[in-house]
């Protein structure tokens, strides 16, 4: 199995621009998680899906962030407009049932 795939791996953008992060979970996994990791805040859960439905997005700033999972093999996290404080590493993870999470390599985002 290829594992969780994220793209892009690195993204540098200017404040105000739209950023779209992509994730392909492991085939057959029914849960998908988006995390953000910074030195100051550590690992934060932004949103998670079960069978493509949003289960909890309370950790996600609703005014600028949106997450979608149009099918079982693809999810996006969009930031519009981006701000410098959004600079972080964004991880996608998937799991099947109540078992361990498998993380992607992350997208390192820098907003100038």
């Amino acid at each position, binding site marked *: 199995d290829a594992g969780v795939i994220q793209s892009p791996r690195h993204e540098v953008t200017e404040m105000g621009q739209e950023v779209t992060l992509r994730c392909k979970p492991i085939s057959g996994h029914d849960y998908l998680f988006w995390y953000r990791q910074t030195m100051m805040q550590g*690992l*934060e*859960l932004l949103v998670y899906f079960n069978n493509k439905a949003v289960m909890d997005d309370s950790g996600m700033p609703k005014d600028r962030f949106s997450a979608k999972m149009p099918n079982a093999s693809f999810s996006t996290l969009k930031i519009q407009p981006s701000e410098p404080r959004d600079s972080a590493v964004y991880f996608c993870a998937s799991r099947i049932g109540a078992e*361990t999470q498998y993380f992607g390599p992350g997208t390192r985002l820098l907003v100038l």
Partner: protein
Amino acid sequence: SQQGEEDPQALSIQEGENATMNCSYKTSINNLQWYRQNSGRGLVHLILIRSNEREKHSGRLRVTLDTSKKSSSLLITASRAADTASYFCATDANNYQLIWGAGTKLIIKP
């Protein structure tokens, strides 16, 4: 949100020594998991211990769980340079979310 706390925040030991990291949490759990993160990489699952288990082994890793004290420890025996990483505990409280600690940064000196 983060409710787990790892202790210590950072640990530096000589290669070959044992490393012990601790994790405390606040609510009842279904299971507790330990993950490793190498610099610039994603997190990798190491071991899962269920609430009805007290100890679990995997290679050089030994995890204990004390639900009465709401704490867990991760022991890495005979440490190697490749063990240099950050280690996170995460608790699953039956709602399919993991609650993460802040991590312990482990440095193994050659």
